[in-house]
């Protein structure tokens, strides 16, 4: 038998039935739910008088639309009545359907893609879905994980399965070693800049090579998280010792009697040598420098030593038009040095970069310094209540506060700006989030995607700087 890729193995082990028409049913081990994409699914389930197929597969939390201040005052204190109703609706649905939920204010609550791995609810070899495109994050554990729409949320609740068609296999090999001060975020931004926002459409991307293996589990999560920004619903990293060490002892991880068998099975979660990939991409990790996005989609990215591009130099009329429109929206000039971009706000958070290592990386840069006077607001939003607790134990909150950062409660916050954390029109933001689309962080807002260290340095300097000179 020909060698199989990691994705092939995960697909094969979850195939319930292959139908004659080319579609298939695949089994879902873990279903994560949040308040924004689930209410219509629960409503559909109730209307059809259906019940969740396997309750214990589901885990819910609130993240997209929660306030990041004063969560301890409870849901009743949320001023925006539409937001309050959405959060209450999830609480009610979880109660009436008996779904396990971490409510707002529970220390275990937080961004769904932070808490899944943190709780051990995401395990190697699982299929994981959630009504959120950044579900790709969980692929860092050698799990087949991807975002779904609300109809599919209802479908998974009702059947524990998804109707699926097998994706193509793509391998992105990042060579190493990565340069000093270069982070997982820089790796994935440089990769997207290379292959484009539709480069992985229809594919499951396995990230491999020294540049990936050398990353911590949290770094691998950052990489897989943004697979969707390269068009791929699925990002994957093969299981190794780091994976197993990370999972061990977490609340939902296999218990002692299962641990040996589970880890034995997990060690097989790698692509076989000679496995066939439809597409092979090589990224030279040794050349990557800290990255900054200058445009309005995540492929519009360059290194910190670079310049804003000149649309006149692009031969392709559609691309030239896109660059021109992006520069107009972003208020940037062709050939402007990246370091000359001044920031109005700084956001450190999101499912891409809000874990403890991200906060440590930012705090190290900030320690003993002050946010520039020209910066209106710099905020740190931890990914979960537990990340927040850990950071406070390490005194990171004090470092941030003393430097002039706001220290918030967990949630998605300014990554998508559903709550009141948002940019004003025309404001430039150094953001550790994942999307720089027009209006993403607030109508008219201008987002620049960067790593936590780069965001921290930009907050201090008031404009982008090469953080490597600060480390």
């Amino acid at each position: 038998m020909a060698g199989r890729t990691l994705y092939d193995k995960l697909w094969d082990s979850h195939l319930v039935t292959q139908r004659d028409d080319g579609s298939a049913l695949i089994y879902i081990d873990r279903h994560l739910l949040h308040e924004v994409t689930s209410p219509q699914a629960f409503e559909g389930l109730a209307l059809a008088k259906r019940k969740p197929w396997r309750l214990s597969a589901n885990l819910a939390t609130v993240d997209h639309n929660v306030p990041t201040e004063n969560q301890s005052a409870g849901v009743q204190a949320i001023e925006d009545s539409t937001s309050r109703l959405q959060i209450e609706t999830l609480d009610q649905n979880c109660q009436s359907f008996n779904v396990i939920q971490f409510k707002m204010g529970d220390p275990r609550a937080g961004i769904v893609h932070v808490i899944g791995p943190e709780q051990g609810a995401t395990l190697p070899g699982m299929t994981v879905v959630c009504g959120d495109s950044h579900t790709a994050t969980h692929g860092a554990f050698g799990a087949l994980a991807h975002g779904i729409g609300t109809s599919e949320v209802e479908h998974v609740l009702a059947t524990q399965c998804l109707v699926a068609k097998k994706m193509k296999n793509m391998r992105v090999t990042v060579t190493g070693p990565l340069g000093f001060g270069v982070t997982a975020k820089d790796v994935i931004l440089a990769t997207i800049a290379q292959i484009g926002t539709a480069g992985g459409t229809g594919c499951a991307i396995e990230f491999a090579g020294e540049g990936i293996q050398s990353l911590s589990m949290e770094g691998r999560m950052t990489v897989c998280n943004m697979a969707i920004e390269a068009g791929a619903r699925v990002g994957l990293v093969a299981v190794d010792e780091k994976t197993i060490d990370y999972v061990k002892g977490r609340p939902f991880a296999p218990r002692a009697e299962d641990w040996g068998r589970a880890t034995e099975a997990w060690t097989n979660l790698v692509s076989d040598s000679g496995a066939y990939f439809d597409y092979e991409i090589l990224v030279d990790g040794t050349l990557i420098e800290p990255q900054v996005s200058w445009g309005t989609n995540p492929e519009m990215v360059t290194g910190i030593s670079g310049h804003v591009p000149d649309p006149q130099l692009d031969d392709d009329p559609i691309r030239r038009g896109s660059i021109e429109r992006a520069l107009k929206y972003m208020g940037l000039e062709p050939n402007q040095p990246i370091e000359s971009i001044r920031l109005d706000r700084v956001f450190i958070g999101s499912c891409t970069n809000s874990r403890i290592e991200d906060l440590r990386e930012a705090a190290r840069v900030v320690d003993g310094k002050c946010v520039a006077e020209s910066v209106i607001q710099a905020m740190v939003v931890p990914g979960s209540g537990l990340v927040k607790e850990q950071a406070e134990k390490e005194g990171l909150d004090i470092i941030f506060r003393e430097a002039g950062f706001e220290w918030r409660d967990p949630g998605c916050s300014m990554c998508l700006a559903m709550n009141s954390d948002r940019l004003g029109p025309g404001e430039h933001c150094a953001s550790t989030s994942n999307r720089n689309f027009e209006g993403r962080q607030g109508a008219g807002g201008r987002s620049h995607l960067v790593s936590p260290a780069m965001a921290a340095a930009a907050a201090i300097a008031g404009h982008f700087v090469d953080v490597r000179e600060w480390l």
Partner: protein
Amino acid sequence: MQKFIKQTGLVAPLDRSNIDTDQIIPKQYLKSIKRTGFGVSLFDDWRYLDPGEPDMDHSVRRLNPDFVLNDKKLAGATILLARDNFGCGSSREHAPWAILEYGFKAVIAPSFADIFFNNSFKNGLLPVVLTESEVDTLFGLADAEIPIEISINLETQQVTGPNNFSASFDIDVFRKTCLLEGLDEIDLSLKDTDAINAYETRRAIEAPWLFRE
């Protein structure tokens, strides 16, 4: 689910690539717990000159005269034409809900983002993939002063239009059948209840840790 068999209608040409779901329906409208009410906010940031919030009366907002959907000649358009990678970004199904509620029945583009593509089928919105040059031709035709009407026939998988425009498109058999017959996917999947049960039994022996309560 709403059926889709054949659609003849006006084409609204939205000449941009990488149209993301944040543009299709901005986040502030995602606070709603309903499936309806999104059509009036479709392409909100491009369509209106003033910022939009969920509870406002959208009929009194200032329309952006430069935005193609505000061209009165295109009122009642049922087919949206766009460039590469339409629907990229978040998984929000509010995007196809908004497009459908506005009145579109189909979107034509050279490529679609995976999740949007999938979500469309679940709601009876047909995403049609044509080649770059076919899409170019349609943009050329639709550029004229007088709007054009085209037909999309799902049964024959053909798009036809003025100047003898004719193009065929691919679609999965399963998705085609679901659209033509308006089938409920959950009902269909539950017909495989025995297979799902058998899988769970087998898997619980192979990987018992996945099934502990």
